[in-house]
């Protein structure tokens, strides 16, 4: 049986992973896949569920990508498996199968206490649960969580974020009893209580009592006390969902769960089980990493492979209520003769425990609370020799000091995706020279991300130097150059290269220095020596096109323009016979201008009140906007007004890469603000700021950075964000990559520009204030200066002769470059094997555009 119809019951994280794994391996399309999903949403990241309360949208948690080889039936729960007729039954019909994969997960266990069905009592399992919790929390003040384990503490944090005073009731004498030992639990409790969460340990909830409105109002505890709470989340553990299997007569594990062997197959050779509902050799695993492992096993088996369940990695690392907690291997020291080494530091408030074999040579497991920086190295070392002396490992930042270089080849570096050190080393040997390449090649670091620091260390250990030198002329990185220029007050490239570099410079370092000088407000970009540093777009203040002509883009702030100005643009285009196109950034691009025409075109535009749109620079381009509350029925703020203000504030700002922005007047997001380097979306009470998005090669949505800001709060935040980016980003690094590469990522960025952790904010704001005050239109400055104007000729010895190589054909009634076939040399370029591009005739079969 290595083909046919497979019905997957469940579209949680593991069911989704199984589907993806099967589709990736089943290149011959032997299996036709049907997925039955009880929820109406396709698979989402349940591990990051709590991020929903941090402003992360349901869409961002989505794990599902459409696949034409998979039929996903949302909102259609399986109700029975008829093994004789080989059909899975749902309320909507029957699905015949050759194989069934049960991925039904688990359900939250709710202890049988009185009042558990009262309104205001919730579980914490699905996005629907979270939405219901948020709804009920509105206007209420006190909440409680039953259960102080991992999920319970997450739920407690969620209630805090919803503004509720929060209680946690845990039956065990410590928090996180499964993962953490007594001393670790005590440390954790101190952190949690400092956050204002009240803990009640060693007590059970005996009943829930309603208030006057019929909803829950209080918890009665086993020690006789009563805790008032208007919202209760039950997070008291999970149970495997095995009812379907039970009804179908399949054997269950001793503590429930669908009993399967190490191949994840049930007693029925056509039925398999994966994830939390599967009792592999009798044991259920409630974590995603072992679940993923079972998904991979079944995908392999269905295609005739021989994979078996490799054993569960129960390691967990979490940031619970802002506290790092990690637990791995034999955390409780249950191995016979095992030894403990513990380390408690009240000053840094960290606790660590290592469990070692009886001869103290082999690491068996451990617990970390407060500082979990050693976790990746330690977890990967479980079962092998210690990478360093125990005390060195446990000292603050010990894990980093020990280094990943000491790990054995079989050590699992990324447990989410089962990637070993050998896999990583092989990828490095195969040419992966940085972390993004390793991620793409091995999948390591693409799930929880905790192993990313180790990937860097392994690159170092393999001798892959990730040089930050800008080019052969400068050993400094762009950030270092920026600091040198700023601190030493250097204002010319020749002095900079004489004192800090070598040679004459090149097309890499010259534009970087030009950009740094421009960001620091050192005068017109074409003055003196600076002209020779500019890339051709900046050198002619226009965008070079394929035929050697340029395009012209006047600024239209926020996309708002008067009819008079529109007419001028039309007249200029007509007069100079320019191709005209409305761009993606709400501006009008005029193509086909020769170098010698640029000043004449701009004379007309400047006289009509236009200024440079900086479409040619690594600079702020546009701030798009929707219509906003002025006209739109849905708009809640003046998005156009803000977009215009922002575009004018940051116009001319040179940066390591082009910058784009947008403002949407409501959550409908018509301006697509989340695909921008910084985007703003209006709320009922103010503005939400998103940062680090981009379109382009690797599209990326921006992350929510700050919420419900007044305009007065918003502007300084953007000022600091932009200036910090300009100061510290690499050459041609967009904001998304800049934040991703930052140690600490978005949290670090927030610390620097919201909490002022580096004491830089005032300086960054002052630098922006200088930029805003010093702005003057580059084209107006050129037109006013005959020296600058002299450069805008096609030929130095024939200023009145137009470039004869620039000629036009007509397409859809407008001029386009004539003779667009690429020259012969292009066929050999750039790597010798790319075939010459063939232009697709798009007019074929399309109706003629009527004019």
């Amino acid at each position, binding site marked *: 049986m290595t083909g046919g119809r497979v019905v997957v019951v469940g579209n949680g994280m593991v069911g989704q992973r199984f589907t993806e794994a099967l589709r990736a391996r089943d290149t011959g399309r032997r299996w036709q896949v049907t997925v039955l999903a009880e929820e109406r949403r396709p698979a989402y990241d349940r591990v990051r569920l709590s991020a929903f309360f941090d402003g992360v949208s349901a869409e961002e948690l989505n794990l599902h990508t459409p696949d034409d080889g998979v039929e996903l039936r949302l909102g259609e729960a399986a109700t029975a498996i008829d093994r004789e007729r080989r059909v899975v039954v749902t309320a909507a019909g029957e699905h015949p199968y050759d194989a069934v994969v049960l991925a039904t997960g688990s359900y939250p266990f709710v202890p049988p206490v009185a009042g558990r069905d009262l309104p205001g009592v919730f579980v914490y399992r699905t996005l629907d649960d979270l939405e219901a919790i948020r709804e009920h929390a509105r206007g209420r003040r006190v909440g409680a969580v039953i259960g102080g384990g991992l999920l319970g503490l997450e739920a407690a944090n969620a209630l805090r974020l919803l503004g509720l005073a929060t209680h946690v009731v845990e039956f065990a004498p410590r928090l996180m009893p499964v993962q953490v030992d007594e001393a670790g639990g005590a440390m954790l409790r101190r952190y949690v209580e400092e956050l204002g969460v009240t803990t009640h340990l060693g007590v059970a909830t005996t009943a829930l009592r309603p208030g006057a409105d019929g909803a829950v109002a209080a918890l009665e505890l086993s020690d006789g006390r009563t805790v008032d709470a208007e919202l209760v989340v039950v997070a008291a553990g999970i149970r495997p969902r095995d009812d379907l299997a039970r009804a179908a007569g399949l054997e269950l594990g001793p503590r429930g769960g669908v009993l399967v062997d190490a191949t994840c197959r049930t007693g029925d050779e056509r039925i398999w089980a994966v994830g939390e509902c599967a009792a592999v050799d009798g044991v259920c695993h409630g974590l995603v990493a072992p679940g993923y492992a079972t998904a991979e096993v079944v995908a392999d088996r269905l295609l005739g492979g021989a994979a078996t369940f490799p054993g569960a990695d129960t390691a967990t690392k979490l940031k619970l209520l802002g506290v790092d907690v990690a637990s791995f291997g034999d955390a409780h020291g249950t191995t016979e003769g095992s030894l403990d080494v513990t380390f408690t530091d009240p000053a840094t408030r960290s606790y660590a425990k290592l469990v070692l074999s009886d001869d103290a040579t082999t690491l068996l497991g451990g617990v970390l609370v407060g500082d979990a920086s050693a976790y990746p190295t330690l977890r990967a070392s479980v079962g092998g020799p210690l990478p360093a002396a125990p005390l060195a490992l446990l000292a603050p930042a010990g894990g980093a000091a020990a280094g990943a270089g000491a790990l054995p080849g079989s050590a699992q570096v990324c447990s989410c995706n089962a990637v070993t050190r050998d896999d990583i080393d092989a990828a490095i040997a195969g040419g992966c020279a940085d972390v993004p390449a390793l991620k793409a090649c091995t999948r390591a670091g693409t799930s929880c991300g905790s192993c990313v620091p180790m990937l860097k260390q392994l690159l170092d250990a393999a001798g892959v130097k990730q040089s930050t030198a800008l080019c052969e002329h400068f050993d400094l990185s762009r950030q270092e150059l920026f600091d040198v220029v700023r601190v030493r007050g250097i204002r010319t490239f020749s002095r900079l290269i004489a004192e800090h570099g070598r040679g*004459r410079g090149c097309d890499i370092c010259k534009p970087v220095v030009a950009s740094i000088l421009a960001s620091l407000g050192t005068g017109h970009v074409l003055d003196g*020596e600076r002209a020779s540093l500019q890339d*051709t777009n900046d050198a002619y203040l226009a965008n070079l096109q394929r035929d050697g002509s340029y395009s012209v883009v006047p600024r239209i702030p926020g996309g708002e323009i008067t009819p008079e100005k529109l007419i001028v643009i039309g007249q200029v285009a007509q007069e100079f016979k320019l191709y005209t196109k409305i761009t993606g950034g709400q501006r009008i691009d005029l193509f086909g201008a020769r170098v010698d025409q640029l000043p004449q075109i701009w004379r007309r535009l400047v006289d009509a009140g236009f200024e440079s749109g900086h479409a040619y620079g690594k600079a702020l381009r546009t701030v798009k906007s929707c219509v906003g509350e002025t006209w739109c029925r849905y708009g809640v703020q003046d998005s156009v007004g803000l977009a215009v203000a922002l575009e004018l504030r940051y116009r001319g700002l040179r940066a390591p890469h082009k910058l784009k922005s947008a403002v949407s007047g409501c959550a409908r997001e018509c301006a697509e603000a989340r695909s921008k380097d910084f985007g703003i979306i209006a709320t009922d009470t103010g503005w939400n700021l998103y940062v680090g998005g981009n379109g382009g090669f690797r599209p990326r949505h921006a992350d929510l950075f700050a919420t419900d800001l007044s305009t007065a709060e918003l502007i300084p935040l953007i000022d600091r964000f932009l200036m910090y980016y300009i100061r510290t980003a690499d050459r041609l690094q967009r904001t998304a990559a800049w934040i991703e590469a930052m140690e600490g990522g978005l949290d670090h960025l927030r610390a620097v520009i919201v909490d002022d952790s580096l004491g830089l904010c005032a300086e960054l704001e002052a630098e922006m204030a200088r930029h805003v005050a010093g702005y003057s239109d580059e084209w107006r400055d050129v037109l006013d200066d005959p020296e600058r104007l002299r450069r805008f000729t096609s030929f*130095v010895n024939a200023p009145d002769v137009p470039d004869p190589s620039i000629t036009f054909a007509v397409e859809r009634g407008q001029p386009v470059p004539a003779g667009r076939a690429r020259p012969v*040399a292009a066929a050999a*370029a750039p790597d010798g094997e790319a075939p010459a591009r063939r232009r697709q005739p798009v007019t074929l079969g399309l109706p003629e555009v009527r004019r």
Partner: protein
Amino acid sequence: MSIATDTSTRRPAADAPGWSPVCPLERLEPERGVAALVDGAQVALFRTGDELFALDNLDPIGGAYVLSRGIVGSRGGTPTVASPLHKQVYDLRTGACLDLPGVAVPRHDVRCRDGLVEVRLRREG
């Protein structure tokens, strides 16, 4: 920059081009290029340090007459210009492309006499 120099250097025959005066030296800005029309041909002239270079203005990869608008610099000890279209780097002395073996731009002779820049086209092949 005398008239006499101009007349004496005019090219003697069509198949053996001579020196053509182009412009005063100060019209070439240091570390930059300009385009010139010489006998109907587009020539890119560069001034770096004390040296003058002349190449065809046509970028052989991109197919547009734009090399004069590239960034001038060096690679190793070699003076270079990078095409503004797709940044391939050419040796200013020989016209050879340093990024793509086998690709080259024709070069021309250039000199400065009495403050005047002169070009002599080379028509190989």
